[in-house]
């Protein structure tokens, strides 16, 4: 098929800007000519659901959909993706609303280590997309992806189930709405059209390029949803007074520093997060979108990026309700969107960090409301402390999972 792509000539040592669509979001990556699509997805866009096994077309781990058809992303140059629509496993379903194939794989124990699963999901999606599949042909049709764990029976059973349930074709990928944020900045990085900034060229000052220019309401499924409710001893007017004063509010947020007030209820600032060996400092913008005095409700949009290509956007709702005995219940609800390498830590760890951050924030708000004073900029727990707490919680959870896995594996 003539691709309709524009003519280009790129020298061996040059970088090329490539624009295409991934899971419904337009993206731009800046890559060397020899980089394959899988590396662009993983390294430039942080979409590490696409796995790499052999990198020469044999194992099928890297299978994605390109313009609707399953293809090996290790056998497509990133530069060849110009203008195409790519769907990766991240686009297939959401954690809360999985694609029927994902549910069937789970139901039939069609995975053990899970390394082959993204490849199998997209290969089988491609097979079943148009319906009319003869179940007897499944072993041959699914031979393009290898699995070293399961012995294939669970996989075949899962795909056969879905084939039966959807004889006229399986539902389309469920997580392909245009998203506000994907990608990493800097050389070899990616960005999303519609955010107003294209991929920064290597010459552009990294600092200037990474601080977001504008904030948009994020769409799609958040990486983490936080809902914290805390009972505070201070009366609701005092708590609201803190919430309503961005300067004091910012100081209650652990690791946060307000650096500029830009007008139109928009602020520039920096939030430091520490997690074990990880140190992240996000520079970004926050805008107050709702100040509901009667309801004691404050809504904010925040967006930040760090030098390592990590990005976050959050929608935050803070509400103070009066409770008996003159106290206040402070609700903090947040939808947090992460991309870049931090997204790899998975929902659990990111969720822990956010949850802990808001809990400490609530305590600091209470303290500030009680004392009536403005806390010093370093108030609240140090980022390190958050990290240690979360890491401990995560370690305990991992240990529990491991124990459980060992027990089930060996029937202890």
């Amino acid at each position: 098929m003539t691709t309709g792509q524009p003519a280009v000539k790129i020298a061996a040592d040059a970088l090329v800007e490539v624009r295409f669509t991934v899971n419904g979001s337009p993206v731009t990556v800046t890559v060397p000519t020899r980089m394959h699509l899988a590396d662009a997805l993983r390294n430039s866009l942080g979409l590490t659901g696409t796995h790499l096994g052999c990198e020469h077309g044999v194992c099928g781990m890297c299978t994605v959909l390109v313009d609707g058809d399953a293809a090996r992303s290790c056998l497509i140059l990133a530069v060849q993706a110009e203008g195409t629509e790519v769907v990766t496993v991240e686009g297939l379903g959401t954690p809360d609303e999985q694609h029927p194939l994902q549910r069937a794989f789970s139901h039939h124990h069609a995975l053990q280590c899970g390394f082959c699963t993204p490849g199998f999901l997209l290969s089988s999606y491609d097979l079943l997309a148009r319906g009319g599949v003869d179940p007897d042909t499944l072993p041959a049709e699914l031979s393009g992806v290898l699995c070293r764990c399961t012995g294939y029976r669970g996989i075949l059973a899962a795909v056969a189930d879905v084939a039966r349930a959807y004889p006229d074709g399986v539902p389309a990928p469920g997580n392909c709405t245009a998203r506000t944020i994907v990608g990493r900045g800097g050389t070899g990085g990616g960005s999303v059209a519609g955010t107003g900034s294209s991929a920064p060229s290597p010459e552009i000052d990294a600092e200037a390029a990474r601080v977001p220019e504008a904030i948009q309401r994020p769409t799609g499924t958040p990486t983490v949803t936080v809902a914290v409710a805390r009972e505070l001893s201070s009366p609701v007017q005092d708590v609201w007074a803190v919430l309503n004063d961005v300067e004091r509010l910012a100081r209650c947020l652990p690791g946060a520093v307000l650096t500029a007030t830009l007008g139109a209820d928009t602020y520039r600032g920096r939030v430091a997060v520490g997690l074990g060996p990880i140190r992240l400092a996000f520079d970004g913008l926050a805008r107050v979108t709702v100040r509901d005095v009667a309801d004691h409700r404050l809504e904010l949009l925040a967006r930040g990026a760090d030098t390592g290509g990590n990005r976050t956007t959050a929608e935050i709702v803070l509400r103070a309700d009066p409770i008996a005995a003159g106290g206040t219940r402070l609700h903090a609800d947040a939808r947090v969107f992460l991309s870049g390498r931090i997204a790899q830590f998975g929902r659990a760890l990111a969720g822990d960090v956010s949850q802990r951050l808001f809990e400490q924030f609530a305590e600091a708000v209470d303290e500030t409301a009680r004392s009536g004073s403005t806390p010093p900029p370093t108030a609240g727990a140090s980022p390190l402390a958050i990290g240690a707490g979360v890491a401990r919680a995560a370690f305990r959870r991992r240990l529990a999972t491991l124990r459980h896995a060992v027990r089930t594996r060996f029937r202890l």
Partner: protein
Amino acid sequence: MKPVAFAYVRPTTLDDAIDELAAAAGSGKILAGGQSLLPVLAMRLSRPGTLVDINAVAGLDGIDRAQETLRIGATVTQRQAERDRVAAAVPLLGLALPFVGHRELRSRGTVCGSLAHADPGAELPAVASCLGATLEIAGPTGRRSVPAADFFAGAMTTTVGPDEIVVAVNFPVAAAGEGFGFAEIARRHGDFALAGVVSRVRSAQGQVLDATITGFGVSDRPVTRDVTGLVASAAEKTDSEAALRAGTDDLAREVVNTVGDGHGSRAYRRRLFAVLAARELARALRRSRAGQS
């Protein structure tokens, strides 16, 4: 594994593509589906200076039927050919394509790229050879037409020059009374064949007019033989497959000259060829007589 750095050019006209190959002065490589080329680059078995991506070249993406010929352009993927109703006019393509690698490879790999790559174990060169397809080749000095018999020159070697491009392949469409067969034995579905056969028999009023067999994976290129006499005499027997089998043993000794490898010795591949050839000639004969192609 990562390829060494290369320049990448994506022309949009055939003339520009030919110019780019000429400019690369022997260090250029055409990138079609990339399903054979990219693994070779990844393993650093090849270090071309420039890749000339032909996928955006206008006019190479057609599947066209003109009278008794089906013309498939250079950028038509194997999967497009598999799905296309026009391509059904060449039933052997429908029989062979599902065995070319896997679905995920066929969605990028091209029909012409497979012919140009000329792997001895590949299916499509054997189909082209059995049917007497013709390749259209364009280069700095103009166009030429080459029959499949003169195109394959050895393992992964063809008579296409380094500054030439295969722009299309022309397959003859199935004639009335023509029947076909295809079979291969591979270690796994989607692998290159240890041995395979493509068969064609044409008959009218029960008389065998001509018959051809092509073996692949048995030599350094597809091997095609006229077996009209053998099939005509077997057609008179009640068990024509058994009758054919006697003849295909002799044929196997002549055409199977691969030295073999750890996956199958020469003797084993001879046996595969002999059995498959008899079976698929018998099938082609049945189909030809039943008017089923």
